[in-house]
Protein backbone atom coordinates (compact mmCIF):
# COMPACT_ATOMS: atom_id res chain seq x y z
CA UNK A 1 0.00 0.00 0.00
CA UNK A 2 1.34 3.46 -0.88
CA UNK A 3 2.17 5.41 2.25
CA UNK A 4 -0.25 8.26 2.96
CA UNK A 5 0.92 11.67 4.14
CA UNK A 6 -0.35 13.00 7.46
CA UNK A 7 -2.83 15.31 5.70
CA UNK A 8 -4.18 12.66 3.37
CA UNK A 9 -6.24 10.70 5.88
CA UNK A 10 -9.96 11.19 5.97
CA UNK A 11 -11.24 12.97 9.06
CA UNK A 12 -12.58 10.33 11.42
CA UNK A 13 -10.65 7.55 9.69
CA UNK A 14 -9.86 4.63 11.96
CA UNK A 15 -6.13 4.02 12.10
CA UNK A 16 -5.02 0.58 13.20
CA UNK A 17 -1.67 -0.59 14.47
CA UNK A 18 -1.70 -3.75 12.37
CA UNK A 19 -2.88 -4.68 8.91
CA UNK A 20 -5.29 -7.58 9.14
CA UNK A 21 -6.06 -9.71 12.13
CA UNK A 22 -3.64 -10.39 14.95
CA UNK A 23 -4.75 -12.60 17.79
CA UNK A 24 -1.85 -12.92 20.17
CA UNK A 25 0.27 -9.79 20.05
CA UNK A 26 2.30 -10.64 23.14
CA UNK A 27 3.08 -14.00 21.57
CA UNK A 28 4.17 -12.56 18.21
CA UNK A 29 7.67 -11.19 17.69
CA UNK A 30 8.07 -7.79 16.08
CA UNK A 31 9.49 -9.30 12.88
CA UNK A 32 6.40 -11.49 12.52
CA UNK A 33 3.86 -8.72 13.00
CA UNK A 34 2.11 -7.00 10.11
CA UNK A 35 2.51 -3.43 11.33
CA UNK A 36 0.38 -0.93 9.47
CA UNK A 37 1.85 2.37 8.32
CA UNK A 38 0.25 3.92 11.41
CA UNK A 39 2.49 2.15 13.89
CA UNK A 40 5.47 4.26 14.91
CA UNK A 41 7.42 1.01 14.46
CA UNK A 42 7.43 1.85 10.75
CA UNK A 43 8.88 5.32 11.42
CA UNK A 44 12.46 6.26 12.17
CA UNK A 45 14.13 8.59 14.65
CA UNK A 46 17.64 7.74 13.44
CA UNK A 47 18.18 11.38 12.47
CA UNK A 48 17.86 12.44 16.14
CA UNK A 49 21.22 10.85 16.90
CA UNK A 50 24.59 12.55 17.10
CA UNK A 51 26.17 9.55 18.73
CA UNK A 52 25.28 5.89 18.37
CA UNK A 53 25.92 2.68 20.26
CA UNK A 54 28.06 -0.05 18.71
CA UNK A 55 27.67 -3.58 20.04
CA UNK A 56 30.67 -5.88 20.39
CA UNK A 57 29.42 -9.38 21.04
CA UNK A 58 32.88 -10.68 22.07
CA UNK A 59 32.48 -9.36 25.61
CA UNK A 60 28.73 -9.62 26.04
CA UNK A 61 27.44 -11.87 28.83
CA UNK A 62 23.79 -11.53 27.76
CA UNK A 63 22.78 -10.10 31.12
CA UNK A 64 19.99 -8.13 29.35
CA UNK A 65 20.44 -4.96 31.43
CA UNK A 66 20.61 -3.00 28.17
CA UNK A 67 17.41 -4.67 26.97
CA UNK A 68 15.35 -3.78 30.03
CA UNK A 69 16.63 -0.22 30.44
CA UNK A 70 16.58 0.90 26.78
CA UNK A 71 13.69 3.40 26.66
CA UNK A 72 13.23 2.97 22.93
CA UNK A 73 12.82 -0.78 22.49
CA UNK A 74 16.02 -0.69 20.45
CA UNK A 75 17.99 -3.51 22.00
CA UNK A 76 17.08 -6.61 20.05
CA UNK A 77 17.22 -9.76 22.13
CA UNK A 78 16.09 -13.12 20.86
CA UNK A 79 16.20 -16.40 22.78
CA UNK A 80 17.89 -14.67 25.73
CA UNK A 81 20.75 -13.41 23.52
CA UNK A 82 21.46 -9.86 22.49
CA UNK A 83 21.68 -9.81 18.72
CA UNK A 84 21.94 -6.13 17.89
CA UNK A 85 20.68 -2.58 18.05
CA UNK A 86 17.65 -1.32 16.11
CA UNK A 87 19.15 1.74 14.44
CA UNK A 88 15.79 3.08 13.20
CA UNK A 89 14.50 3.50 16.76
CA UNK A 90 17.63 4.15 18.81
CA UNK A 91 17.81 7.80 19.89
CA UNK A 92 21.42 7.61 21.04
CA UNK A 93 20.72 8.28 24.71
CA UNK A 94 23.62 6.12 25.90
CA UNK A 95 21.75 4.38 28.73
CA UNK A 96 22.62 0.91 27.37
CA UNK A 97 26.32 1.73 27.56
CA UNK A 98 26.03 3.06 31.12
CA UNK A 99 24.27 -0.06 32.41
CA UNK A 100 26.52 -2.57 30.60
CA UNK A 101 28.52 -4.32 33.34
CA UNK A 102 31.32 -5.96 31.32
CA UNK A 103 34.93 -4.81 31.26
CA UNK A 104 35.58 -3.62 28.62
CA UNK A 105 31.98 -2.68 27.92
CA UNK A 106 30.14 -4.59 25.21
CA UNK A 107 28.39 -1.45 24.02
CA UNK A 108 30.10 1.91 23.51
CA UNK A 109 28.99 5.22 22.04
CA UNK A 110 30.63 6.57 18.88
CA UNK A 111 29.96 9.48 16.54
CA UNK A 112 27.08 8.73 14.21
CA UNK A 113 29.39 8.45 11.19
CA UNK A 114 31.78 5.96 12.86
CA UNK A 115 32.37 2.68 11.03
CA UNK A 116 31.27 -0.35 12.99
CA UNK A 117 33.95 -2.78 11.76
CA UNK A 118 36.78 -0.34 12.40
CA UNK A 119 35.56 0.47 15.91
CA UNK A 120 35.13 -3.19 16.83
CA UNK A 121 38.66 -3.92 15.54
CA UNK A 122 40.00 -1.13 17.76
CA UNK A 123 37.82 -1.94 20.80
CA UNK A 124 39.35 -0.73 24.11
CA UNK A 125 41.10 -3.35 26.21
CA UNK A 126 40.09 -4.35 29.71
CA UNK A 127 40.35 -1.45 32.14
CA UNK A 128 42.61 -2.88 34.89
CA UNK A 129 41.92 -0.07 37.31
CA UNK A 130 38.21 -0.71 37.20
CA UNK A 131 38.58 -4.47 37.57
Amino acid sequence: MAKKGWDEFEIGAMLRTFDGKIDDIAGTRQEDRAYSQNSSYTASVADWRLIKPIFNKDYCIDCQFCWIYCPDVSIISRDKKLIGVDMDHCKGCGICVEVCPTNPKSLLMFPEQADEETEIANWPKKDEEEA
Partner: protein
Amino acid sequence: MSEMKKIKNLKEFSTSADRFEGANLLCPGCAHSIIVREVLNATNDDMVLSASTGCLEVCTAVYPYTSWDASWIHIGFENGSTAVAGAESMYKALKNKGRLKQPERNPKFVSFAGDGASYDIGFQWISGCMERGHNIMHVVLDNEVYANTGGQRSSSTPIGSSATTSPAGRVSYGEKKNKKDMVAIMAAHGIPYSAQVAPNKWKDMVKKIQHGFSVDGPVFINAVSPCTTEWKFDPKDTMHLTDLSTDTLVFPLYEIIDGHELNITYRPKNVIPVEEYLAAQGRFKHLFKDEYKYLIKEWQERVDANWAYLQRREEARV
Protein backbone atom coordinates in the same frame (compact mmCIF):
# COMPACT_ATOMS: atom_id res chain seq x y z
CA MET B 1 -8.17 -16.07 35.68
CA SER B 2 -5.44 -16.53 33.13
CA GLU B 3 -2.09 -17.76 34.25
CA MET B 4 0.49 -15.30 35.53
CA LYS B 5 3.41 -14.80 33.16
CA LYS B 6 6.53 -16.50 34.54
CA ILE B 7 9.46 -14.12 34.86
CA LYS B 8 12.20 -15.77 36.88
CA ASN B 9 15.08 -13.62 35.80
CA LEU B 10 16.06 -10.92 33.37
CA LYS B 11 17.06 -13.37 30.64
CA GLU B 12 13.63 -14.91 30.73
CA PHE B 13 12.02 -11.46 30.84
CA SER B 14 13.96 -10.48 27.72
CA THR B 15 12.04 -13.02 25.66
CA SER B 16 8.97 -10.74 25.99
CA ALA B 17 7.60 -9.32 22.74
CA ASP B 18 7.14 -5.62 23.48
CA ARG B 19 3.76 -4.03 22.90
CA PHE B 20 5.16 -0.52 23.05
CA GLU B 21 7.04 0.83 20.04
CA GLY B 22 10.02 3.01 19.33
CA ALA B 23 10.06 6.11 17.14
CA ASN B 24 7.76 7.70 19.67
CA LEU B 25 8.76 11.30 20.37
CA LEU B 26 9.76 11.04 24.03
CA CYS B 27 13.14 12.63 24.78
CA PRO B 28 16.21 10.40 24.48
CA GLY B 29 16.68 8.81 27.90
CA CYS B 30 13.09 9.42 29.09
CA ALA B 31 12.16 7.06 31.94
CA HIS B 32 8.44 7.09 31.12
CA SER B 33 8.90 4.47 28.41
CA ILE B 34 11.16 2.29 30.56
CA ILE B 35 8.34 2.14 33.12
CA VAL B 36 5.69 1.49 30.47
CA ARG B 37 7.73 -1.38 28.99
CA GLU B 38 8.14 -3.01 32.40
CA VAL B 39 4.41 -2.76 33.12
CA LEU B 40 3.30 -4.04 29.71
CA ASN B 41 5.84 -6.85 29.63
CA ALA B 42 4.68 -8.07 33.05
CA THR B 43 1.73 -9.81 31.39
CA ASN B 44 0.89 -11.58 28.15
CA ASP B 45 -2.82 -10.88 28.57
CA ASP B 46 -4.69 -8.41 26.41
CA MET B 47 -4.50 -4.83 27.59
CA VAL B 48 -6.87 -1.90 27.58
CA LEU B 49 -4.81 1.20 28.19
CA SER B 50 -5.26 4.91 28.60
CA ALA B 51 -2.92 7.83 28.92
CA SER B 52 -3.83 11.19 30.38
CA THR B 53 -2.48 14.26 28.62
CA GLY B 54 1.21 14.65 29.28
CA CYS B 55 4.55 13.65 27.78
CA LEU B 56 3.67 9.97 27.42
CA GLU B 57 0.39 10.63 25.66
CA VAL B 58 1.58 13.48 23.47
CA CYS B 59 4.69 11.63 22.33
CA THR B 60 3.15 8.23 21.60
CA ALA B 61 0.11 9.29 19.60
CA VAL B 62 1.42 11.75 17.05
CA TYR B 63 -1.00 11.59 14.15
CA PRO B 64 -0.95 9.42 12.09
CA TYR B 65 1.20 7.24 14.35
CA THR B 66 0.58 5.20 17.45
CA SER B 67 3.30 3.58 19.53
CA TRP B 68 0.84 1.23 21.21
CA ASP B 69 0.13 -2.36 20.16
CA ALA B 70 -2.95 -2.58 22.35
CA SER B 71 -6.33 -0.89 22.76
CA TRP B 72 -5.48 2.61 23.87
CA ILE B 73 -7.52 5.67 24.64
CA HIS B 74 -6.82 9.29 25.40
CA ILE B 75 -9.57 11.77 26.24
CA GLY B 76 -8.25 14.58 28.38
CA PHE B 77 -5.78 15.56 31.03
CA GLU B 78 -7.95 14.67 33.99
CA ASN B 79 -9.84 11.57 32.93
CA GLY B 80 -7.48 8.80 31.83
CA SER B 81 -8.46 6.81 34.91
CA THR B 82 -12.20 7.13 34.30
CA ALA B 83 -11.77 6.33 30.60
CA VAL B 84 -10.29 2.98 31.49
CA ALA B 85 -12.79 2.51 34.31
CA GLY B 86 -15.59 3.02 31.78
CA ALA B 87 -14.12 0.37 29.50
CA GLU B 88 -13.79 -1.96 32.46
CA SER B 89 -17.41 -1.39 33.49
CA MET B 90 -18.57 -2.15 29.96
CA TYR B 91 -16.46 -5.28 29.91
CA LYS B 92 -17.99 -6.44 33.19
CA ALA B 93 -21.51 -5.72 31.95
CA LEU B 94 -20.98 -7.65 28.71
CA LYS B 95 -19.43 -10.50 30.65
CA ASN B 96 -22.40 -10.66 33.03
CA LYS B 97 -24.76 -10.70 30.06
CA GLY B 98 -22.74 -13.46 28.43
CA ARG B 99 -22.08 -11.26 25.42
CA LEU B 100 -18.28 -11.37 25.31
CA LYS B 101 -17.02 -12.87 22.07
CA GLN B 102 -13.92 -14.30 23.73
CA PRO B 103 -14.81 -14.65 27.40
CA GLU B 104 -11.69 -16.68 28.09
CA ARG B 105 -9.44 -13.68 27.49
CA ASN B 106 -8.66 -11.75 30.58
CA PRO B 107 -7.77 -8.17 29.68
CA LYS B 108 -5.91 -5.89 32.05
CA PHE B 109 -7.11 -2.31 32.39
CA VAL B 110 -4.32 0.17 33.01
CA SER B 111 -4.30 3.95 33.13
CA PHE B 112 -1.00 5.83 32.76
CA ALA B 113 -0.77 9.43 33.88
CA GLY B 114 1.78 12.00 34.98
CA ASP B 115 2.03 13.45 38.45
CA GLY B 116 0.27 16.60 37.25
CA ALA B 117 -2.59 14.52 35.88
CA SER B 118 -2.73 12.38 39.04
CA TYR B 119 -1.76 14.47 42.07
CA ASP B 120 -3.57 17.61 40.85
CA ILE B 121 -5.84 17.66 37.85
CA GLY B 122 -7.17 14.10 37.74
CA PHE B 123 -7.18 13.74 41.51
CA GLN B 124 -10.93 13.50 42.12
CA TRP B 125 -11.40 11.27 39.08
CA ILE B 126 -8.82 8.81 40.35
CA SER B 127 -10.29 9.01 43.83
CA GLY B 128 -13.70 8.18 42.34
CA CYS B 129 -12.26 5.15 40.53
CA MET B 130 -10.64 3.91 43.72
CA GLU B 131 -13.80 4.46 45.72
CA ARG B 132 -16.07 2.74 43.20
CA GLY B 133 -13.87 -0.33 43.19
CA HIS B 134 -13.12 -0.70 39.48
CA ASN B 135 -10.78 -3.47 38.49
CA ILE B 136 -8.16 -1.08 37.12
CA MET B 137 -4.56 -0.13 37.73
CA HIS B 138 -3.53 3.52 37.77
CA VAL B 139 0.18 4.07 37.18
CA VAL B 140 1.71 7.48 37.89
CA LEU B 141 4.80 8.40 35.91
CA ASP B 142 6.12 10.61 38.67
CA ASN B 143 8.65 13.11 37.34
CA GLU B 144 7.54 15.65 39.95
CA VAL B 145 6.71 18.38 37.44
CA TYR B 146 4.43 19.30 34.54
CA ALA B 147 7.11 18.30 32.06
CA ASN B 148 5.14 18.43 28.86
CA THR B 149 4.23 22.10 29.22
CA GLY B 150 7.67 23.28 30.23
CA GLY B 151 8.23 22.46 33.87
CA GLN B 152 5.55 24.01 36.08
CA ARG B 153 5.40 22.78 39.68
CA SER B 154 2.81 20.20 40.67
CA SER B 155 1.83 19.01 44.13
CA SER B 156 4.43 16.28 43.60
CA THR B 157 7.29 18.77 43.16
CA PRO B 158 9.59 18.47 46.18
CA ILE B 159 10.90 21.28 48.36
CA GLY B 160 13.80 23.23 46.91
CA SER B 161 13.25 22.15 43.32
CA SER B 162 13.36 24.99 40.81
CA ALA B 163 10.30 24.89 38.56
CA THR B 164 9.13 27.51 36.06
CA THR B 165 6.28 28.57 38.36
CA SER B 166 8.43 28.34 41.49
CA PRO B 167 11.82 29.39 40.17
CA ALA B 168 14.91 29.60 42.33
CA GLY B 169 16.59 32.96 42.29
CA ARG B 170 17.63 35.89 44.43
CA VAL B 171 14.55 35.81 46.66
CA SER B 172 13.52 32.17 46.56
CA TYR B 173 14.96 28.69 46.78
CA GLY B 174 12.23 27.36 44.50
CA GLU B 175 9.34 25.10 45.52
CA LYS B 176 8.39 25.61 49.17
CA LYS B 177 5.66 23.06 49.70
CA ASN B 178 6.05 19.46 50.67
CA LYS B 179 5.40 16.72 48.14
CA LYS B 180 1.93 15.20 48.51
CA ASP B 181 1.95 11.63 49.85
CA MET B 182 -0.20 10.09 47.11
CA VAL B 183 0.48 6.46 47.96
CA ALA B 184 -0.88 7.03 51.47
CA ILE B 185 -3.87 9.01 50.19
CA MET B 186 -4.75 6.28 47.72
CA ALA B 187 -4.25 3.54 50.32
CA ALA B 188 -6.63 5.45 52.58
CA HIS B 189 -9.39 4.59 50.10
CA GLY B 190 -9.04 1.05 51.41
CA ILE B 191 -8.01 -0.30 47.99
CA PRO B 192 -6.49 -3.79 47.84
CA TYR B 193 -3.08 -2.65 46.67
CA SER B 194 -0.98 0.47 46.39
CA ALA B 195 2.77 0.62 45.92
CA GLN B 196 5.76 2.74 45.01
CA VAL B 197 8.05 1.37 42.31
CA ALA B 198 11.19 2.36 40.42
CA PRO B 199 12.29 1.08 37.01
CA ASN B 200 15.86 0.26 38.15
CA LYS B 201 14.42 -2.34 40.55
CA TRP B 202 12.66 -4.13 37.71
CA LYS B 203 12.07 -7.35 39.64
CA ASP B 204 10.38 -5.54 42.51
CA MET B 205 8.36 -3.59 39.96
CA VAL B 206 7.25 -6.62 37.94
CA LYS B 207 6.30 -8.45 41.12
CA LYS B 208 4.16 -5.53 42.25
CA ILE B 209 2.54 -5.09 38.85
CA GLN B 210 1.73 -8.80 38.69
CA HIS B 211 0.33 -8.69 42.20
CA GLY B 212 -1.72 -5.68 41.16
CA PHE B 213 -3.10 -7.64 38.21
CA SER B 214 -4.01 -10.55 40.45
CA VAL B 215 -6.11 -8.67 43.00
CA ASP B 216 -9.75 -7.83 42.59
CA GLY B 217 -10.26 -4.08 42.75
CA PRO B 218 -8.39 -0.85 42.10
CA VAL B 219 -4.61 -0.66 42.25
CA PHE B 220 -2.49 2.45 42.58
CA ILE B 221 1.17 2.50 41.52
CA ASN B 222 3.53 5.45 41.90
CA ALA B 223 6.61 5.07 39.68
CA VAL B 224 9.59 7.41 39.96
CA SER B 225 10.40 8.69 36.49
CA PRO B 226 13.60 10.76 36.29
CA CYS B 227 13.15 13.42 33.60
CA THR B 228 16.35 14.34 31.82
CA THR B 229 14.87 17.62 30.57
CA GLU B 230 13.29 18.99 33.76
CA TRP B 231 15.53 17.44 36.39
CA LYS B 232 18.43 18.53 34.21
CA PHE B 233 20.84 15.66 33.86
CA ASP B 234 22.51 13.93 30.92
CA PRO B 235 20.18 11.45 29.16
CA LYS B 236 22.67 8.63 29.61
CA ASP B 237 22.32 8.97 33.40
CA THR B 238 18.62 8.12 33.74
CA MET B 239 19.30 4.79 35.44
CA HIS B 240 21.98 6.34 37.65
CA LEU B 241 19.43 8.92 38.80
CA THR B 242 16.90 6.17 39.43
CA ASP B 243 19.49 4.28 41.49
CA LEU B 244 20.17 7.44 43.49
CA SER B 245 16.45 7.97 44.07
CA THR B 246 15.95 4.52 45.59
CA ASP B 247 19.29 4.20 47.37
CA THR B 248 19.09 7.59 49.09
CA LEU B 249 15.56 6.56 50.18
CA VAL B 250 14.14 9.69 48.57
CA PHE B 251 11.90 7.17 46.79
CA PRO B 252 11.58 4.26 49.20
CA LEU B 253 10.03 1.14 47.69
CA TYR B 254 7.07 -0.28 49.59
CA GLU B 255 3.55 -1.55 49.21
CA ILE B 256 0.33 -1.11 51.19
CA ILE B 257 -2.09 -4.03 51.20
CA ASP B 258 -5.82 -3.50 51.78
CA GLY B 259 -5.20 0.10 52.71
CA HIS B 260 -3.20 -0.58 55.86
CA GLU B 261 -0.63 -3.38 55.84
CA LEU B 262 2.66 -1.76 54.84
CA ASN B 263 5.66 -3.76 53.61
CA ILE B 264 9.01 -2.25 52.71
CA THR B 265 10.19 -4.14 49.62
CA TYR B 266 13.71 -2.81 49.17
CA ARG B 267 16.34 -2.01 51.77
CA PRO B 268 19.49 -0.53 50.19
CA LYS B 269 22.68 -2.18 51.47
CA ASN B 270 24.46 1.16 51.43
CA VAL B 271 22.21 4.11 51.96
CA ILE B 272 23.56 7.05 49.96
CA PRO B 273 23.42 10.61 51.41
CA VAL B 274 20.56 12.64 49.91
CA GLU B 275 23.09 15.32 49.00
CA GLU B 276 24.38 13.09 46.18
CA TYR B 277 20.89 12.78 44.71
CA LEU B 278 20.40 16.55 44.83
CA ALA B 279 23.87 17.27 43.41
CA ALA B 280 23.20 15.13 40.34
CA GLN B 281 20.34 17.37 39.15
CA GLY B 282 20.27 20.90 37.80
CA ARG B 283 16.88 21.59 39.40
CA PHE B 284 18.58 21.55 42.84
CA LYS B 285 21.82 23.31 41.83
CA HIS B 286 21.06 26.48 43.81
CA LEU B 287 20.78 24.50 47.07
CA PHE B 288 24.56 24.25 47.06
CA LYS B 289 24.98 28.02 47.52
CA ASP B 290 25.99 28.95 51.06
CA GLU B 291 22.69 30.64 51.91
CA TYR B 292 20.63 27.57 50.96
CA LYS B 293 22.83 24.78 52.28
CA TYR B 294 20.64 24.39 55.36
CA LEU B 295 17.98 23.03 53.02
CA ILE B 296 20.17 20.04 52.16
CA LYS B 297 20.33 19.19 55.84
CA GLU B 298 16.56 19.55 56.11
CA TRP B 299 16.14 17.31 53.06
CA GLN B 300 18.15 14.57 54.75
CA GLU B 301 16.16 14.95 57.95
CA ARG B 302 12.88 14.67 56.05
CA VAL B 303 14.02 11.55 54.20
CA ASP B 304 15.26 9.98 57.47
CA ALA B 305 12.00 10.79 59.22
CA ASN B 306 9.96 9.28 56.40
CA TRP B 307 12.05 6.11 56.41
CA ALA B 308 11.64 5.82 60.19
CA TYR B 309 7.88 6.31 59.74
CA LEU B 310 7.64 3.59 57.08
CA GLN B 311 9.61 1.19 59.26
CA ARG B 312 7.41 1.89 62.26
CA ARG B 313 4.31 1.29 60.18
CA GLU B 314 5.72 -1.93 58.80
CA GLU B 315 6.53 -3.15 62.29
CA ALA B 316 3.17 -2.16 63.74
CA ARG B 317 1.28 -4.10 61.01
CA VAL B 318 -1.52 -1.56 61.10
